[in-house]
């Protein structure tokens, strides 16, 4: 058993290395900005003040983090048994769709009940959507990487179908969107900000997952499968069932993100619900190695970078494309640490 102080030192070392990496990334970022004739200090100051330097800025960062954490967990949970779930986007949409059904058909219910049903449907929708891919994988028919990817496209088309068709806003707008949700169907928000209950969902899920994996028998079996699937199977652990369950949980989390976005942020279902949260979540999950704490941290960094991107466009008059490149450069630097594993 390792000594507690050794573990602490190891953690400090990782932290130090991470900080060093961040410094290099920032410096590289600055160099590129200089190349384009911009002032990096000003840029950083602007980014900082817009994301962390004010209550508003910080609240917006949290708003951005909420769906990212959930979709990252959506990829992380199945990844524990080496399933690749790239379907977070589609699962998010299906979850949003199911929650929307409740919002527009179960009017008249008290808010607490309605929101609970919406959340449950969000989880159910996203979970089942992912479970289909899980079933195809468990029966040895289709790799979940390909099925979840294809089902992303199908999910978005489904949303388009209902939004242009049966669920189109009868208020006569005819733009592809559903009717506005009643106040009862909107997730409560904190103070005057847009920080909503979705953040709580996300953090609870992250903590819950860490706990479940580390301290329960279920978590033990999951780790066993992740360590050596064949040996686990021979020990009687029902792999196929776990494939289904893990995919369901992952999809459910993404579906919950969809419900939160559609309820708190959008107020109605639109095809433009998600600017790629599912894929960003996937990226975050694999960057953080699937660890809940790392996921929260990475989601935070990505939220800041995204907001920073807009700031750069605004204050430095940089075209959006350059911001994309800068983001990629930073990510490459962070990814390119000589760690050996991962």
């Amino acid at each position, binding site marked *: 058993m390792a000594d507690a102080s050794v573990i602490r030192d190891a953690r400090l070392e990782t932290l130090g290395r991470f900080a060093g990496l961040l410094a290099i990334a920032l410096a590289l970022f600055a*160099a590129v900005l200089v190349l384009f004739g911009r002032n990096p200090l000003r840029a950083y100051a602007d980014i900082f003040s817009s994301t962390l330097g004010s209550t*508003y800025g910080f609240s917006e960062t949290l708003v951005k983090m909420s769906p990212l954490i959930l979709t990252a967990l959506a990829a992380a949970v199945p990844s524990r048994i080496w399933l690749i779930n790239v379907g977070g986007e589609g699962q998010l949409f299906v979850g949003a769709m199911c929650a929307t059904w409740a919002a527009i058909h179960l009017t008249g219910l008290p808010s607490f009940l309605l929101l609970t049903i919406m959340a449950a449907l969000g989880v159910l929708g996203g979970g089942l959507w992912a479970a289909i891919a899980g079933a195809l994988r468990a029966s040895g028919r289709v790799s979940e990487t390909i099925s979840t990817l294809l089902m992303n496209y199908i999910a978005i088309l489904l949303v388009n179908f209902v939004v242009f068709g049966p669920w189109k806003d009868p208020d006569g*707008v005819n733009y592809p969107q559903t009717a506005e949700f009643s106040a009862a169907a909107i997730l409560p928000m904190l103070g005057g900000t847009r920080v909503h209950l979705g953040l709580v969902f996300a953090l609870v899920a992250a903590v819950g997952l860490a706990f479940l994996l580390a301290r329960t028998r279920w978590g033990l079996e999951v780790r066993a499968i992740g360590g050596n699937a064949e040996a686990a199977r021979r020990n009687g652990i029902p792999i196929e069932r776990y494939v289904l369950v893990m995919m369901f949980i992952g999809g459910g989390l993404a579906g919950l993100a969809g419900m939160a976005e559609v309820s708190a942020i959008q107020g109605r279902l639109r095809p*433009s619900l998600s600017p790629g949260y599912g894929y960003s979540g996937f990226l975050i999950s694999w960057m953080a190695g699937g660890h809940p704490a790392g996921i929260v941290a990475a989601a935070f960094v990505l939220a800041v970078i995204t907001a920073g991107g807009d700031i750069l466009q605004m204050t430095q008059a940089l075209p959006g494309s350059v911001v994309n490149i800068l983001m990629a450069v930073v990510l490459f630097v962070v990814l390119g640490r000589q760690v050996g594993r991962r």
Partner: protein
Amino acid sequence: MTKLFVILMSLAVSAGPWAAEAADPKLKVGILHLGSVTDGGYNQAHAEGIAVMKKNLPEVEVIQVENVPEGADAERVMENMINRGAQMIIAASFGYLEPTMRVAQKYPNVKFFHPGGYKRTPNMTTYWASTPEAFYLMGMAAGKTTKTNKIGYVVALPISFFLANINAFELGARSVNPKAETRVVFTGTFLDPGKEATAANALLEQGCDVLGVIVDSPITVVQTAEKRGAYSVGFHYIGVSKFAPKGWVTGVAFTWGNLYTRFAREVMDGKFKSEDILGGLADDFLTLAPFGAAVPKDAATLVEAKKQDFIARKAHPFQGPLNDNRGAERVKAGETFPLTDLRKMDWLVEGVVGQPR
């Protein structure tokens, strides 16, 4: 290595554009785009309008952000612009309507402008150029030009504004050519040149010899038509006629420059008033492209006459009786479908082959 960075940074700090702005601008205008301003289409039209505004009013400073998704991000961007001193915001995409209203309510002293919106706050103006009349006229030109009586339309999504355009187009074509038929293919997305080319080819194979287009950028479809010897009708980008020297019929584009100049002037002079502006053929923010050589000469006369009728309100593109392409009656005889209600149009008129949902 570290030394190098330190040197670079100090150079940046000393040589970079510090607070070296010229005299304080009289007005800061923020504009957000859903896509990229170099899309050769919708977003570019807005950006070009802003450029004209800047030229006309050099004392105005512009803050421009591209690729802003609808929803929470739009609100954040707008708030950031306001925090940076923007007193006027143009939220250049229909989907920004609700975010704009929320931010507008929060900042009653800032003026907001939204294209295509149908509701507003006291510090907000919505504006749009009603396109069906222009499409009716284009349809007339196309109806006169087509030899196979089949016109194809490559459209992004079955949004009501687009459906209205197609309906007006078909009605215009029918009015000069009773056999004219319009076939619509929806690509499902605003910009995917590969799909647009495939869709265009499919329509051409079905015998269409005129191709129209309603996507972010008309270039692909117009080029495909030209390559296969068909005629083309453009949208969003006046300059696209150069891609179809032989087959160009006409096109329509938004030219927001003067309108944006007027908006900025109003805000600067404190003369802003919240209104819903629905422009048309008589206004300068909708421009009909000159006819191509392929269009018969008598068409130009007919079109000009109709244009004057529209402007004088003596004619209406959606004059009843009108049935949709599934046989149901949509507009009774003697009535018209009001242009202010285009949002409600979710059907395609008889003579159009296509599924609107």
